């Protein structure tokens, strides 16, 4: 019989039962929870040793933060945009302030090409008050590379960097950075890295994402901390992946294990609103290689969605079409139609595309868009399908 430590036994039992795993108080002393972060890495050149599993948004219960931090999770990602999240964290943060690295982010619409230094510093003060602290460890630009918020001129506004410098001088901010999972992620994060603007980058990535490696390599070479997010965005895309999640399988854990084993990032921030989710995700901390079951789960996921799934930050097909079909937009509308059950919305959006630029051209085309796709997405086939689905409406 394989030797099994008490903690390993407790962990396995609790996970099987789906109950949070903590250890009772003995003689009034509070023991740390049995599940702990098991691997730490340097977070770039910040001097912080960060656990491989970090906390994302979604908590509404302060006790969950308390539990996360007692489990050794020592980085948490929040932002002004995550309604109420800063306040909930602020209820717990003073108790753990020196033990937790706080990544905060300005509200994305605030950061424009014309925003002033004063407005940014005022917003920082509002966040500090909500967080119940005098400083954040990293203040980030939120969601750069996202067309909704503007182009690269937005992050080239000198006021941002003046505000960061001032905040550092006032000891309200220790490090700075940016988050992105938008179409222009590689361009805008890359610009910040090339121009030495960021200490830490927070990037959307998962096991189906390729192409971010050169960016991460460049970041690492400069000592920039790297954090993964959206590691399970596939689930949010409602592609019926949950059907693969049975009692005997845990595809969610496999997604996280892939990120950990890839060693591409210093840590991964994961949304965990409940005690149960903290335990589920902490159980894979320390992973350095994937087991056979993990490969099986990921292969199942990949088979289900890879040929259809446009990866975060990818814009390889943009501008490839000789007919100016907005390939990424059409594929997104198709996703609304098929996966989000938003047929009317998808059709209305498709209708807004000029007739001369719709995917009706695609059937007889050599599909340079597909040739440019680094992931093997069956672009032409999907565009032809999209035209049929969306036009029929």
């Amino acid at each position: 019989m394989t030797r099994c430590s008490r903690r390993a036994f407790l962990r396995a039992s609790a996970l099987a039962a789906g109950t949070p795993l903590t250890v009772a108080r003995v003689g009034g002393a509070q023991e740390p929870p049995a599940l702990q972060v098991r691997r730490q890495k340097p977070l770039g050149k910040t001097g912080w040793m960060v656990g491989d599993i970090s906390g994302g948004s979604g908590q509404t219960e302060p006790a969950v933060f308390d539990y996360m931090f007692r489990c050794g999770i020592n980085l948490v990602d929040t932002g002004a945009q995550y309604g109420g999240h800063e306040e909930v964290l602020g209820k717990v943060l003073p108790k753990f302030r020196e033990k937790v690295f706080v990544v905060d982010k300005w509200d994305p619409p605030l950061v424009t090409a014309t925003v002033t230094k004063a407005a940014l510093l005022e917003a920082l003060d509002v966040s500090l008050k909500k967080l119940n602290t005098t400083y954040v460890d990293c203040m980030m630009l939120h969601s750069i590379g996202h067309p909704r918020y503007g182009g690269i001129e937005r992050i080239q506004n000198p006021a941002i960097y003046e505000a960061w410098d001032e905040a550092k001088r006032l000891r309200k901010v220790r490090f700075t950075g940016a988050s992105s999972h938008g179409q222009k992620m590689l361009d805008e994060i890359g610009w910040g890295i090339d121009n030495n603007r960021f200490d830490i980058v927070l990037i959307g990535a998962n096991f189906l994402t390729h192409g971010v490696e050169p960016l991460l390599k460049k970041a690492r070479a400069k000592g920039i901390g790297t954090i993964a997010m959206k590691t399970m965005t596939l689930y949010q895309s409602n592609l019926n992946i949950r059907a693969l999640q049975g009692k005997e399988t845990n595809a969610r854990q496999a997604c996280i294990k892939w990120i950990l084993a890839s060693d591409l990032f210093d840590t991964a921030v994961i949304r965990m609103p409940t005690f149960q989710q903290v335990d589920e995700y902490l159980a894979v901390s320390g992973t350095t290689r994937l087991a056979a079951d993990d490969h099986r789960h990921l292969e199942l996921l990949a088979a289900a969605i890879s040929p259809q799934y446009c990866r975060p930050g990818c814009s390889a097909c943009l501008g490839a079409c000789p007919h100016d079909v907005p390939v990424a937009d059409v594929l997104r509308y198709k996703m609304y139609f098929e996966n989000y059950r938003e047929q009317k919305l998808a059709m209305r959006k498709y209708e807004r595309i000029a007739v001369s630029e719709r995917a009706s051209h695609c059937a007889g085309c050599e599909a340079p868009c597909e040739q440019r796709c680094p992931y093997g997405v069956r672009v032409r086939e999907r565009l032809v399908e999209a035209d049929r689905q969306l036009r029929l409406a």
Partner: protein
Amino acid sequence: MLTVLGAVWSVEAFAGGQTPGATQALSGTAKQVLAWLPGERSATGWKRSKPPQVFGAGNLWEFIDGAADTYVGYGFEELVSVTCTDAQLGAEATIDVYRMADALNAFGIYAQERNPRATFLSVGAEGYEAPNVLTFWNGRYYVKLRAVPAGPRVAASLRVLAQRISERIGPPANLARAIPAFPPTGQVPHSIRYLPRDVLGQAYLSNGFEVQYTAGATRWRLTTAAFGAAEQAATALNRYKTFVASSGHVAREIASPGEGGFVGSDPYNGLLVAVRAGGRLVVALGAPSERAAMETIGALLGRSPSRQEEP
């Protein structure tokens, strides 16, 4: 002030304020919301300066990124966002109107984002303002207005604009029967929250409410969760007790208030009193004393019968 009021906004019928192409592309519900907002051809005050944007549950993340999960959790259905400018004020405003599943969920997302330190306003069911931002909820709508640059004239203009939008939505919803009648003594104003899921960070507790209380320097809270049947509530209470026993301490069983439960403590909240009444769980967390917790729970149960007990 008269200048401000005179310059704020003239309502424009949607059909006259939109380009034909844009109107054809919008849903009926989005058109209805747009009719409440400034149009492109307003004679004075705020004028819509960009095409409206409409988002559904499937793509809300494109608009508000990681915050979208929370909105979807509160039954988000559709967002209409418009950008307006006021030449006289030299200001630009964005108005975001979120349509939620119902009034309770509109209240829920509003309360989730509510800043208890803000200045509260009598607009819609409830609203508040902070520098350059005004937020309120009314009916099934959660409305956010933001303007730059900030300033007293712009703030006054946003107040008038918000009031006009609210009037067009209709009279405020009455949630008195939906929200538990938490005892008022010691209750922190504007602290009631609706928690559709993950109540107390527990995946098996849903359909809850929470309110904050103060007693001297102690701030504590009362939390509820509701179930379709008493048996389900009993099972959930047992599960919660097991959780508390593993993470903290269960001191003893109690036979009342309600149908009883347990007294214990956990590492974050300290004292904990949890009871069941019909299909409801009520948990007091961090109360200054066991007695205070039980009295407040008892008062709550006396003021609001569980759904099973309602006629």
